[in-house]
């Protein structure tokens, strides 16, 4: 960690790819139908201050990541507990995304292949890149981002003939309740999951806090999700009520320009694979860093492989079927993730600010 540095651009790319990771394909805010975009905007408005809390926390303790801060603020034993909790959260999240990916491949592309295969492939790739370190991860994300953005952009353009503005009406027909529910769900998946970045990064001592790339990445990722959601809404309209598992796939399948530009779902697959790759890698990295902290190791490289394999196994066995996965993701997950994403960082920041304030006062006193 001390030699590996990532630039602002690389951080930006990682955040964008993390945010759009699994959300583009699974969809967000499934509780809402036509007013999804309002839910996304509200969630974004709530996520921006939350992210600023995360960054402020990092900048108060230069050179330390979230786990170090937990130890510092809460002491050895309680800190250890929290580090364990966060490690579990990262681990669980990685397994969930892995499973999402496996379900996607299993359902849409290769029904007969047992789900362990795509999960294994993805898992092995993530283990490799995490072993190489965060610098390689950052550079790869930096390289992949323009490609992904270009693909999404071209697909959006190609979808234009299929767009139907009427599908966006009526606005707020069902009132604000489902919209707020959807906003809450979107906030916790994917916006506030970026708390894991605090676990893998630390603010270098004499540089500015990374507000711009972090927030910029969040907003850019949210913007991409917004445009894709708009596209899905305008292409599919009411059939969204049937709750397809992967709406983007079906929407993109409708592109037909001339007789040749058709059947472009492969672009959706590529975007999903790359996004999930980055997201799972970050989760794996966070989990390995947590274990490194707990076990007092020198480097996390030695634990990446066992944690990765455990993640693969967990992903394989975590749900019985897709229906369970969807129910968990949209009904329960927001509440489960709330402490990790909201409560603990806020409490940490509160305690840190108070103690810094006390320190300042203590420093000032002798001179006065």
């Amino acid at each position, binding site marked *: 960690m001390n030699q590996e540095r990532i630039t602002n651009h690389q951080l930006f790319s990682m955040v964008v790819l993390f945010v759009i990771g699994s959300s583009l394909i699974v969809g967000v805010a499934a509780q809402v139908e036509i007013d999804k975009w309002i839910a996304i905007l509200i969630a974004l408005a709530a996520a921006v201050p939350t992210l600023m809390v995360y960054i402020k926390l990092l900048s108060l303790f230069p050179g330390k990541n979230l786990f170090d801060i937990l130890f510092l603020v809460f002491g050895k034993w309680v800190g250890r507990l929290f580090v364990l909790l966060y490690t579990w959260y990262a681990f669980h999240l990685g397994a969930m995304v892995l499973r999402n990916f496996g379900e996607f491949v299993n359902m849409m592309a290769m029904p007969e292949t047992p789900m362990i295969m795509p999960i294994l492939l993805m898992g092995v*790739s993530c283990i490799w890149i995490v072993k190489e370190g965060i610098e390689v991860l950052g550079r*790869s994300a*930096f390289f992949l981002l323009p490609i992904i953005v270009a693909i999404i952009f071209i697909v959006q353009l190609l979808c234009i003939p299929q767009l139907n503005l009427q599908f966006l009406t009526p606005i707020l027909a069902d009132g604000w309740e489902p919209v707020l529910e959807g906003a809450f769900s979107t906030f916790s998946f994917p916006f506030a999951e970026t708390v894991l970045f605090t676990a893998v990064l630390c603010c270098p001592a004499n540089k500015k806090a990374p507000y711009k790339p972090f927030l910029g990445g969040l907003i850019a990722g949210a913007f991409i999700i917004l445009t894709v959601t708009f596209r899905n809404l305008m292409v599919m309209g009411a059939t969204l009520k049937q709750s397809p598992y992967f709406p983007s796939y079906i929407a993109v399948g409708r592109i037909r320009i001339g007789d040749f530009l058709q059947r472009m779902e492969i672009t959706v697959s590529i975007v999903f694979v790359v996004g999930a790759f980055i997201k799972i890698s970050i989760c794996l990295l966070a989990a390995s860093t947590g274990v490194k902290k707990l076990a007092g190791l020198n480097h996390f490289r030695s634990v990446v492989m066992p944690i990765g394999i455990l993640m693969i196994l967990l992903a394989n066995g975590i749900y019985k079927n897709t229906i369970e996965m969807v129910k968990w993701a949209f009904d329960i997950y927001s509440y489960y993730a709330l402490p990790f994403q909201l409560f603990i960082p806020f409490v940490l920041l509160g305690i840190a600010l108070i103690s810094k304030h006390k320190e300042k006062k203590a420093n000032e006193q002798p001179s006065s």
Partner: protein
Amino acid sequence: MNLWKKRKGQEEDCPPNEQKRPGGTELAFSLEENLATLRSIFESDDMIQFRILENKSQKAIQGCVIYVEGMTDHQILDEYVIEQVISSDVPRYTRTDYLEELQKKALLASNLCLTQDLQKITDAVLVGNAVLLLDGSPKAIIIYCKNLESRAVEEASSEQAVRGPRDGFTEQLLVNLSLIRRRVTSADLKCQYKYIGRVTKTKVCICYLKNIASDQIVKELEHRLNELDIDGIVDSGYIQEIIKDSPFSPFDTIGHSERPDSIVGKLLEGRVALVVDGSPFVLTVPFIFPELFQTPEDYYNNFIFASFNRMLRIFGAVLALFVPAIYVSLTNFHQELLPTPLLLSIAAGRYDVPFPTVIEAFLMLIVFEILREAGARMPTAIGQTVSIVGALVLGEAAVDAKFIAPSMIIIVALTGISALMNTKVQGAILVLRFVFLILAAFMGIYGVIFGALCLITHLMSIRSFGIPYMLKEGSIRYTDIKDTLIRAPWWYMRLRPQLIASKNRVRMSRHAKKGT
């Protein structure tokens, strides 16, 4: 190198190729003793000639010229040395000074050196120089009259260009260095000699521009060359493989070129060149990914045309890597992604073909590689036969006999030609193509995507002498794609590449406007 140390029973530290020399390491005073020593060193070697000399007028002046038959310039030897010694009337006052007197006053050859070191004398003789021994003197004169047959400077056969200079390196170190030096007439160009290889004692030269190249890289290169412990270097390829950073990667992290203009261009960007005697390929260090797709011609042609060519090359490389894999995955796993008429055409072509698509692809790729390798090894007299056989085999007969589907022929031809377009990355593409094909056969397009992701991971993690391999790649900032994806016009390429030339980045002044 370390393997030798582990062998049991090997007590000596000295590798078995070297022989212990009889006697000491210095010459004696007496000519007979010296001759006896040297004759025993060069025992059983009929090529080494000993020419005994005696001065016409002063009988006490006795000497011997030792040289290798066929490797010396006899004009220098005969006229400037032997004749001078024989007919010299430099008086002999004191014995010890006589050799130096002769050297200063009688010998006409320009390149001479006095030495007492026996090792140096034997090395000099073996290289093709001549040695003059005089009775009563413990020193000897080495006359640098080496005259080896060598190729004339002609066009580089591996990198031909339509536009640009046509001289290429030869196997002579001095000729190569002169080709570089005559283009870079600056005192900042430093050339440092080194000798590598215990048996071959190959002379190599490190060239760099002191005010631009990074000192760390030069030091690192020197360090690695010093650590090199091998018996012989026959071609620069040996050095390239041994000192490179990621030995198991299929991608080159040390560049090579046969063209002086290309090397000089790289020197001007801050890279370090390594010229190896006996090899027309000069190495450059560091070597990063964008250079795989650059040719010197890009910089001489119009920038629009050059940019187009460069993008074509990158596209060709991607095509060559992925096309067979994508074809196999689409027709075998994801038939829904093909438009219906295309699918029916492919299906029609595959009717009655006995092999599954993957086997077909493998077979045809291997046949193509066999043809390529055969074409490279075949004597030119039979070269025509190969192309005819290739066209017949790959083309008509396989399709007519319903062994291979016609769509596969197109795929393989496309892949093969695209791979040949990029010579520098050809080796990597060849191997990786098969890897992607296997991945596609297992997991369809997802295998290919993951293969690509792992390839990106690998490329991002390797470094060339401390510089990340994918420096600049993937950056869409204007400053970075100026020389990777496109070739920006010269007035925009004001700065040298980061990290490599961090000492001195300004190439051109700000006022160099277009059209001046």
